[in-house]
């Protein structure tokens, strides 16, 4: 089981990450994935993402390890970008490798839900008119994460 966590300013390649993940062997039947992008609207121009170096990587690693145990993953890659990202740019990539598609896709949802609520990132919005504002945490994200809580929560 290969867990790969990266917090970086650079863009990422799904193809390259998939190729790296597949080195894990031949028992895999598929990769579930989510790629989050900066959603536009209401005059938004860009987001600037800030994080807590050290804690971010350890929290994401723990979430990935929990997903591996819970869904029997053969590999899990989480790449989260920080810095300034304009509308449409990728922010986050989660890849979960499993023998079967249901585990791969459920694990992807699990990792995203916990990433939203337990990984120390913050977003500052930057609008076309030059205004900036910190994004509030969404209560909906806590609800989404709580649905996995039967077996305890990451972190």
């Amino acid at each position, binding site marked *: 089981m290969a867990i790969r966590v990266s917090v970086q300013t650079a863009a990422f390649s799904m193809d390259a990450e998939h190729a790296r993940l597949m080195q894990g062997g031949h028992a895999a039947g598929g990769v579930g994935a989510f790629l*989050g992008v900066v959603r536009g609207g209401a005059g938004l121009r860009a987001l600037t*993402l*800030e*994080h*807590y170096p*050290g*804690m971010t990587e*350890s929290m994401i690693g723990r979430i990935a390890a929990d997903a591996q145990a819970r869904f029997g993953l053969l590999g899990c890659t989480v790449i*989260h970008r920080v810095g300034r990202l304009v509308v449409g740019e990728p*922010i*986050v990539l989660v890849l979960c490798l499993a023998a079967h598609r249901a585990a791969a896709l459920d694990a992807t949802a699990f990792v*995203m839900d916990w*990433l*939203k*609520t*337990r*990984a*120390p*990132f*913050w*977003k*500052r919005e930057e609008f076309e008119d030059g205004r900036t504002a*910190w*994004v*509030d*945490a*969404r209560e909906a*994200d806590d609800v989404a994460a709580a649905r996995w809580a039967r077996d305890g929560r990451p*972190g």
Partner: protein
Amino acid sequence: MITILYFAWLRDRLGRSSESMPLPEGVRFVGDVIRSLAERDGEYRAVFGLQGGAIRCAVNQEFAGPDDGVRDGDEVAFFPPVTGG
């Protein structure tokens, strides 16, 4: 000494991202640290007094609540609720 880190709007409002301070007399829990910061002037009082409910904390990079302990040498971080992903 403890190291205190501030992130996001806390850092913006307090004008600093970190500081070191001796562990004050009688301070044993996160809640004690928050109260001692709220006793300072200006933005500190506003941030740690009135707005305390909107602030999250980590001790040595683990999420922590007001009842969690703080010891000499710890890294204590204050930040808004997280918004990753």
